[in-house]
């Protein structure tokens, strides 16, 4: 088990390799379909994403009516491949060093990871409770107009469990598994 702690950097994530199980401690910003489309269209990010990690997640959130404070009650990853058209640009233009999601991403993202120093972390899809437990505080809410699941949530996490499935050296577990399963598929069909 490896650890990655805040502040994050391209140098630190360059150390990580496909297959590494990593516990992340520090800040995460959620961002999914609407946010990626928004950034792709050239809009300014409401938060500085330099050296930050984006988490593909639309959490279940509850607001305390008295204090106005938000809590995240479920927060697993959403399917990342939908951001494939935009992710490389967000890596290039905003300087993010990590993407957390599920299902993996494609060649464009893999190339951007290599070029700019970024890693794709796979969280366990559907494990919304285990992952929400690792959220220690909700520090901000941006672009609320996209709807709560689509907004940017600034979160502080501790020992957030992920697996590196695409590293900054051009390796992708998803590519490997797809290729090996394709070979088996051709035999069983």
């Amino acid at each position, binding site marked *: 088990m490896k650890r990655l702690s805040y502040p994050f950097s391209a140098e630190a994530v360059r150390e990580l390799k496909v*297959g590494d*199980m990593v516990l992340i401690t520090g800040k995460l910003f959620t961002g999914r379909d*609407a946010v990626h489309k928004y950034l792709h269209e050239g809009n300014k990010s409401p938060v500085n994403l330099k050296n930050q990690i984006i988490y593909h*997640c*639309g*959490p*279940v959130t*509850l607001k305390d009516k008295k204090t106005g404070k938000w809590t995240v*009650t*479920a*927060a*697993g990853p*959403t*399917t990342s*491949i939908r951001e494939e058209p935009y992710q490389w640009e967000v890596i290039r233009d905003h300087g993010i060093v990590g993407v957390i999601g*599920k*299902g*993996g991403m494609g060649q464009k993202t893999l190339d951007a990871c290599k070029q700019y120093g970024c890693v794709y972390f*796979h969280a*366990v*899809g*559907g*494990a*919304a*409770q*285990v992952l*929400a*437990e690792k959220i220690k505080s909700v520090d901000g809410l941006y672009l609320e107009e996209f*709807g*709560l*699941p*689509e907004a940017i949530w600034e979160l502080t996490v501790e020992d957030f*469990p992920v*697996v590196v*499935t695409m590293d900054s050296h051009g390796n992708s*577990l*998803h590519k*490997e*598994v*797809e290729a*090996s*399963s*394709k070979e*088996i*598929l051709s035999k*069983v*069909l």
Partner: protein
Amino acid sequence: MDYTFKETSMTKKVATKKPKGKSTPKKVVKKIATKKTDPKTQIIDSLLELIRVTSTVVPDDVAKTLMKARAQEEKNTTASYAMDIINDNMELAKFKSQPLCQDTGTVIFFIYHPPGFFQNAFKELIKKAVVKATQKGYLRQNSVNSLTGENAGTNLGEGHPSIHFYETNKKEVEVKLVLKGGGCENVSAQYSLPDTALGAGRDLEGVRKVVIDSVYKAQGKGCGPGALGVCIGGDRADSSYNAKKQLLRKLDDKNPIPELAKLENEIVETCNKLGIGPMGFGGKTTLLSCKMTHANRVPASFFVSISYMCWAFRRQGLVLDAKKNTIKKWLY
């Protein structure tokens, strides 16, 4: 006794509340009893509990299958790590009474009711329960207007929740609920046979090929290890719907049609040789189960529809007590 959710009996109950002036002890007792069992409120409460349990607890048959799969993965692999987290998540969601997965999915109700049932009135109660469940955080604000992108935050809207009624000869009402997440819905598929690229013809062998292909194509994106509902035949719409309805079957049941029972097992075995594994990390369990049905088709069409369900297989059901509208029995 009549079903209390019938308009006639609802009216009756309201009528008994009206005469307020009389003060014999007996009447008072009756009044309290009537208040407690206000049929609409009770039905909403029972439906709310159904949503809570469905969103937070994996049914026993699924949990058992998942535990078997967990035991099979090699230790110290990312696959076994994923299955451990899945296990922890099931325990935690149940304990905290919070959603297993943040994508609480499309809310799909199946209502099996006796003749003379008031479907529209029941629909309104379902909607109220869904709004309440959203406020309580059992459901995420998950319903988006496809034209405007607006999310009303209530889980109500055009086509939401999805509600299907079936008239039966039973005296009691059964309500089944499936919460189907978007990730696994996105990898669900429909094939039209023959499929030249796969060499799949219009027979069960062709069906086998396309179903396995769909699991290969899904890779880890549907939050595997997954479970399939499959329909052979039907038009495009019915075929997809019937495939989804197969998700109502328990994973350990047996298909009464021998050819399909055989094919179901064969597909599971073969898919587990693909090595895609939990989350697509590589591993032994790619598919937990495959449940198949068939529907007639027109000579020109031969559709095979596949509904992929993630490991967080949220399905539950209950029997409503005919008198009290409380939960008489859980179905899974």
